[in-house]
């Protein structure tokens, strides 16, 4: 004997409408199972990039896009060429000066001035050629400098071949060298 189909549907519907008790720990168990599953075959991002680079790709480009790309490349090449041709930034033009003193009896001569903090140890002069000639070469930036020769650690001499520095303060003679430019 069979029940009427409508009755069986009603009964199934009533059964399905009843609440079902679910274990509260179900979510946790499911997530643990998922976490424990082995990851799909993915490497590092570097490997992904490498694989992408090795794969063939199809690039579509409109004529206008191709022209724009060519123009951009041309600008980059032009700029790099211009930067290689442009002169280096100008610096204060230093000039090299040779200072000479004839001092036959001196045993030690130093050049001291505004360019070496008036420190007698900074620019010792070299005895060259004949025994009487003392020389030193110093690079000087534009400016006006006072200087003097310090002989044998005790005697000050002005440069006989250079303008004299007027000095009412310190008494000991000094000379002047001026390097032009430097606006």
């Amino acid at each position, binding site marked *: 004997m069979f029940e009427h189909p409508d009755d069986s549907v009603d009964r199934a519907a009533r059964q399905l409408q009843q609440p079902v008790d679910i274990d509260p720990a179900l979510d946790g168990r499911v997530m643990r199972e998922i976490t424990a599953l082995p990851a799909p075959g993915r490497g590092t991002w570097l490997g992904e990039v490498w694989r992408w680079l090795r794969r063939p790709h199809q690039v579509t480009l409109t004529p206008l896009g191709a022209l724009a790309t060519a123009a951009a490349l041309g600008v980059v090449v032009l700029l790099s060429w211009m930067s290689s041709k442009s002169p280096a930034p100008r610096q204060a033009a230093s000039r*090299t000066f040779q200072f000479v003193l004839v001092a036959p009896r001196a045993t030690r001569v130093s050049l001291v001035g505004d360019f070496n903090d*008036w420190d007698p140890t900074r620019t010792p002069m070299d005895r060259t050629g004949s025994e009487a000639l003392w020389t030193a070469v110093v690079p000087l930036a534009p400016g006006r400098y006072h200087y003097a020769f310090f002989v044998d650690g005790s005697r000050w001499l002005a440069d006989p071949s250079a303008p004299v520095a007027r000095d009412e303060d*310190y008494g000991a003679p000094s000379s002047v060298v001026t390097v032009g430019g430097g606006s």
Partner: protein
Amino acid sequence: MTPALSRGALPLLAAILVAGPMAAQQTDPRLERLEAAIRPAVAALVDSARAAMLPTEPLVQRALEGATKHASGDVIVAAVRRLAVDLAHARDALGSTASPAELTAGAAALRAGASPTILAQLRQTRRQPLTMPLAVLADLVASGVPVDSAAAAVLALAARARDADLVEFRRAVERDIALGAPPAAATAAAATLSSVQVNAGARQQRPGRP
């Protein structure tokens, strides 16, 4: 000589003149070579100059020169203060765009006796840097040339003469003075000759000798 000062320079000079007792904020280590007693005064002068946008290196060098030459402390402080005032006067005459080299040379010219008006005229006359004309002016006066004669000659040459021309002019004057010519006459003669030669053509660079 008391040059006329603009209103802008007066506070600066006041600061420099009273800077002695002030405490220095950041002392240049090179000033350790000075006697301890004068170090604060010199450092304060340097600080005041720096605050006034004046070049400080000439002041440090002036103090170190005094220390190396064993000048007394008072003399060193006075020399540094005098140079600071001269630099301020030079800046007042040459304008705020003057370079440190121009200010140093301008201070030397003022100390030699040139008037601020001459410095201002040079600034108007010459478009190139003024370091060399100002230095030549100071050097000529130091050689015994009357300041008016030296200023007139340098002003006449400054517009077109190159630095090398001015150096040659100074050498010619010194050479003639050494040979016995009166300084003013030697200056006038050399200026006339130089004005003819200026821009006569490119010249070979002179070797670097003071």
